[in-house]
Every structure is written in structure tokens, then in C-alpha cells.
């Protein structure tokens, strides 16, 4: 019980309020200032996260508890938030987006994510999820002059609130029949005689379906490609990584004990999660094969990665999941950062043909994109290879052999479209002239940091692995 447990969330919320107020009172002049305020608040949150390591802080009778899993994920969110703000600095003014609004909404979404990963109570998870969702709808629609952006926001809002209603109804059944809002004791009976047979299981099923919606797991992924494509590119980088990470951690916290205990509950939920994982991998990868827009291709690849990550959830493999999420943060944020740089001034996103000859005209940028794509495909010696290796070998150790065979097959399919992009960049002659002469140091910094992360985690993952294992002993 310590007030310090709230410090990271308070820092982020304070930053959000300050950047929104600066935007409101200074208008365009306040843009740089509000971005600075946002980054400073992220640094403060980072400081409190590092400070809380191994302290096991908790608040609200431990309904909000900063265990190592929550702290690692919070660190991921803070780094991602900083990346997105740096990517937006020049992009926002080019695309007529109010930077202060973007920073404020982004920080509010980050607060929701932090609440989600650190809570042990369903109501708090729901509130965090909704804080995240409401901020994300607004973030998606920020390019007000662009019809695609508002269309994406409308679709995201409709599907998101639809999923939210399922969450509420599931919660009602779960609470009504088990009498407990705790994540851990959902299916263990709770001591109250149940009004409905198998009531908690039905409630939990509805909640898991709602979370699948938010993570973009097939068959609930239909909204995702449209939303990721229509959203402003830095926001798309955020949406493909953050809600997925938080949702998967909640799923891990709920399902790992259920699946680990065995019995009927495991016999029901285990196959469901495995089937969803396989379906997601193939739905994402097969649809990505026939895309001509690079942004949409990456959107489908993000869906496929939800499937790989679900393998870790199905195996109850917490350390594997966290390592995969950290590797995924660097490779996906990097790919979207390069995409931000490639976007033309007219607002169109890069098509596959538009990338032709990029290897000759902008060798550094092309090389970085190639590294990110190879990592997403899972080639050694990048972080993506090790992440897949740990998750898949962890799942085999738990006996999920069929699931892993399907996952390996799906990643083989994915190699086809990742390599297609690389081939177009290096082996086709330029058809149109793609000029990237802009001076955007912040964006290059993000690209550099992501390359560094991908290569460093691929070659020397030791430090991070030690940290994850140290945190995970006795936890998951």
C-alpha cells in the first residue's frame, strides 16, 4: 500500500492535462511546448517505473499493483509513447494535425494502458480499457481534413463500443454468478452458490471475446486493417502495438491460471485460444499477400503477429510474451517510422510500386526498412527471430506441438510478402520519383533507436532476458 504506486499514471495524466491546456491557450504557438511537456511527463513516468522495480507497490487494496510484469509493460508503453511523439513532430504540421491534441490524447491512452496492465480487478481493467479506447477513437480521427481518417474513426468507434458492451454484459454475468471481481478468482467458484450453471464461464467467455476484438484476433479482426490504414501513420504505429500488448497481458493474467489448473475450464478455453491463434495467423498473413499499399500490408502483418502472441498466451508463457512484445515494439514502430518518412506531401501512403528503386536513391532508409521487415518475418540475427524462437520453443515444451507447427507454417507464408517489399526496393527500377529531402532529425532518431533495438535484442538479448526472468520468478 503506497501512494507511489500511482506515480507513473499520475505523471502521464498530468502531462496530458498540461499539453491539452497549452494547446487550448496558445494555439499553434503551443505545439512545440506541449510536445516538450508530454516528453517530460513520459520521462518522469519512466523514472517512477524504474524506481518501483522490485518494490511490489500496490494501491486501492492491491487492486492496482505494480508487479514486474506490469512494470515491464509500462516501460514498453512509455518508450512507445516517446517514439510516437517524436514521429509526429514534423508529420503533424505537414498534415494539419494539432500536435498538442495528439500528445494529450496519446498520454491519456497511455494512462489507460498502464491502468489495464497493472490492475487485478475486472472493473479497473474495464475502466482502463475504456480510457484507452475513447482516446484511441479520437486519435484515429485526428486528420480532420482527410475522409479516410474520419471513416477509420467511425469504424473503430462502432466496433470498439460494440465490443465494450460485450465486456459489460460478460462482467455482469461473471460478477453476478461468482460474486468476485478479481481477475484471479473468476472461475474458482468464489464461494457464492451460482444462480446459473456455468455462469462464470459464460461471463468470462464474453469478456475474452471482447478482448479478442481489441487485440484484433480473428474472427473479430475485420475492423483492424481499415482503422490502421486510415489512422495517421504515427497513430497507426501506436494502435498496432499498444492495445494489443495490454489486452494480451490481461488475457495472460486471466487465462494462465485457468489453463494451468487443468480440468473442464482448461478443456474449454484452451482449444478456443489455440484455434483463435491459428485462425488469426493465417487470416492476417494470407490477406497481406495480396496488398499493394505498404501501410495496409503492415496492418495485416500486425494482425498475424497477434496470432503468434496468442501462442504464448495459450502456453501460459509470460517471459516469452513480454520478450516478443518488446521485440515487436522496436520492429513495428521502426517500420511505421520509415513509412512516415516515405509518405508524400499529398497525403498518400506509399504503395508497393512507389518503393521501387528505394535501395538506390535512399540506401540508408531502405536498409533500415529491410532490417525491420526481416525481423518481422523472423530472420536471424534479428530480435524477431529470437522472439519467435522463445515463444515457439516455450509452447513446444508445454506440449502444444500442433499449434507451433501451424505457427511456423504461417511465418513461412509471411516471408513471401515481407521479402516482396525488400525485392521491390532493391531489384526494381524506379518508376516514379520519391523525394525524401526533409530534415526530420526526430524521425531519424526513432528509426535509429528501433534499428538499434532490433539488432541489439537479436544479438545480445542476455540483459533483457535476465531482467524478465528476474521479474517473472514466482509470478508467471
Amino acid at each position, binding site marked *: 500500500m503506497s501512494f507511489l504506486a500511482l506515480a507513473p499514471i499520475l505523471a502521464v495524466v498530468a502531462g496530458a492535462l498540461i499539453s491539452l491546456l497549452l494547446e487550448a491557450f496558445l494555439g499553434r504557438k503551443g505545439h512545440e511546448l506541449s510536445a516538450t511537456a508530454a516528453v517530460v511527463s513520459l520521462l518522469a513516468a519512466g523514472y517512477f517505473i524504474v524506481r518501483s522495480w522490485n518494490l511490489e507497490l500496490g494501491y486501492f487494496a492491491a487492486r492496482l499493483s505494480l508487479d514486474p510484469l506490469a512494470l515491464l509493460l509500462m516501460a514498453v508503453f512509455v518508450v512507445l509513447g516517446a517514439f510516437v511523439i517524436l514521429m509526429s513532430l514534423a508529420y503533424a504540421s505537414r498534415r494539419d494535425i494539432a500536435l498538442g491534441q495528439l500528445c494529450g490524447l496519446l498520454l491519456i491512452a497511455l494512462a489507460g494502458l498502464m491502468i489495464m496492465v497493472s490492475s487485478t480487478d475486472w472493473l479497473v481493467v474495464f475502466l482502463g480499457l475504456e480510457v484507452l479506447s*475513447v482516446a484511441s477513437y479520437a486519435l484515429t*480521427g485526428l486528420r480532420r481534413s482527410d475522409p479516410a481518417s474520419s471513416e477509420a474513426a467511425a469504424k473503430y468507434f462502432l466496433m470498439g*463500443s460494440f465490443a465494450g458492451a460485450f465486456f459489460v454484459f460478460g462482467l455482469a454475468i461473471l460478477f453476478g454468478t461468482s460474486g468476485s471481481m478479481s481477475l484471479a478468482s473468476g472461475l474458482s467458484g468464489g464461494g457464492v452458490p451460482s444462480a446459473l450453471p456455468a455462469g462464470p464461464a459464460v461471463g468470462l467467455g464474453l469478456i475474452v471475446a471482447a478482448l479478442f476484438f481489441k487485440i484484433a484476433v480473428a474472427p473479430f479482426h475485420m475492423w483492424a*486493417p481499415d482503422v490502421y490504414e486510415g489512422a495517421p501513420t504515427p497513430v497507426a504505429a501506436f494502435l498496432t502495438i499498444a492495445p494489443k500488448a495490454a489486452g494480451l497481458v490481461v488475457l495472460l493474467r486471466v487465462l494462465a491460471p485457468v489453463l494451468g489448473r487443468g480440468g473442464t475450464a482448461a478443456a474449454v478455453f484452451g482449444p478456443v485460444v489455440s484455434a483463435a491463434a491459428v485462425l488469426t495467423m493465417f487470416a492476417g498473413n494470407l490477406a497481406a499477400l495480396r496488398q499493394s499499399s505498404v501501410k495496409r500490408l503492415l496492418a495485416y502483418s500486425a494482425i498475424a503477429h497477434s496470432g503468434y502472441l496468442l501462442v504464448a498466451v495459450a502456453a501460459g508463457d509470460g517471459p516469452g510474451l513480454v520478450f516478443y512484445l518488446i521485440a515487436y515494439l522496436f520492429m513495428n514502430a521502426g517500420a511505421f517510422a520509415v513509412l512516415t518518412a516515405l509518405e508524400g506531401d499529398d497525403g498518400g501512403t506509399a504503395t508497393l510500386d512507389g518503393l521501387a528503386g528505394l535501395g538506390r536513391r535512399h540506401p540508408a532508409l531502405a536498409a533500415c526498412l529491410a532490417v525491420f521487415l526481416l525481423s518481422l518475418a523472423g530472420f536471424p540475427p534479428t530480435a524477431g527471430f529470437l522472439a519467435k524462437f522463445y515463444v515457439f520453443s516455450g509452447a513446444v515444451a508445454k506440449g502444444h506441438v500442433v499449434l507451433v507447427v501451424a505457427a511456423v507454417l504461417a511465418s513461412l507464408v509471411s516471408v513471401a510478402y515481407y521479402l516482396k517489399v525488400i525485392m521491390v526496393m532493391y531489384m526494381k527500377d524506379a518508376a516514379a520519383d520519391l523525394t525524401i529531402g526533409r530534415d526530420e532529425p526526430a524521425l531519424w532518431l526513432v528509426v535509429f533507436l528501433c534499428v538499434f533495438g532490433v539488432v541489439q535484442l537479436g544479438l545480445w538479448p542476455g540483459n533483457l532476458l535476465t531482467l524478465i526472468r528476474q521479474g517473472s520468478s514466482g509470478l508467471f
Partner: protein
Amino acid sequence: MIPPLAFFVLAAVLFVLGVVAFFVKKDLLTQFMAVEVMLNAGNLAFLALTAGPGRANAQAIVLFVIAVAAAEAVVGLSVIVLVFRRRKSIRTDELRDLKG
């Protein structure tokens, strides 16, 4: 006295009606209203399943859900207004710039 279970059945029926309306209607506002029906069915289910002494938490939870629904409505309605300004229509079958 009406048994609490009857209210739960009513809530379940309302929820299913909301789901059906969400898929049948092709209009952003009507679909949003369907979602609101589903959310309030959830609230009713909370109260119906937790009727009885010593279960007052549920009523506090319902207040939270109402607050969340209000926040969602604010953002959602502004998004719908934004779509209408761009296209002069809020029919979902005309929202198909993004596909592939």
C-alpha cells in the same frame, strides 16, 4: 414480487435485440443506439444478478459503466458529426474508401 431472474431474462433479451439491430441497421446513429441498448442491458443484468443483501457493490459498478458510456457517447457523436460533415451521409454502406 417479480423474481430477479425475470429481470435478467429481460436484460438478455434486450442485449440480443441490440446485437441484432447493430448488424441489421446500416446507419451510424442507429447502430450507436443499438450499442447503448446493449450497454444498458449490461447494467440491468448487473442489478438483476446481484439483487439481495450485502451486494451493493454492483450498484456502484453500474454508476461507473454509465459514466463510461457517457464519455463514449461524447467522442462517438463527434466522430459521427465529423463523418457527416465530410460526406453529407452517415450510412455505413457508403463508408468504403478503405478496403482491400
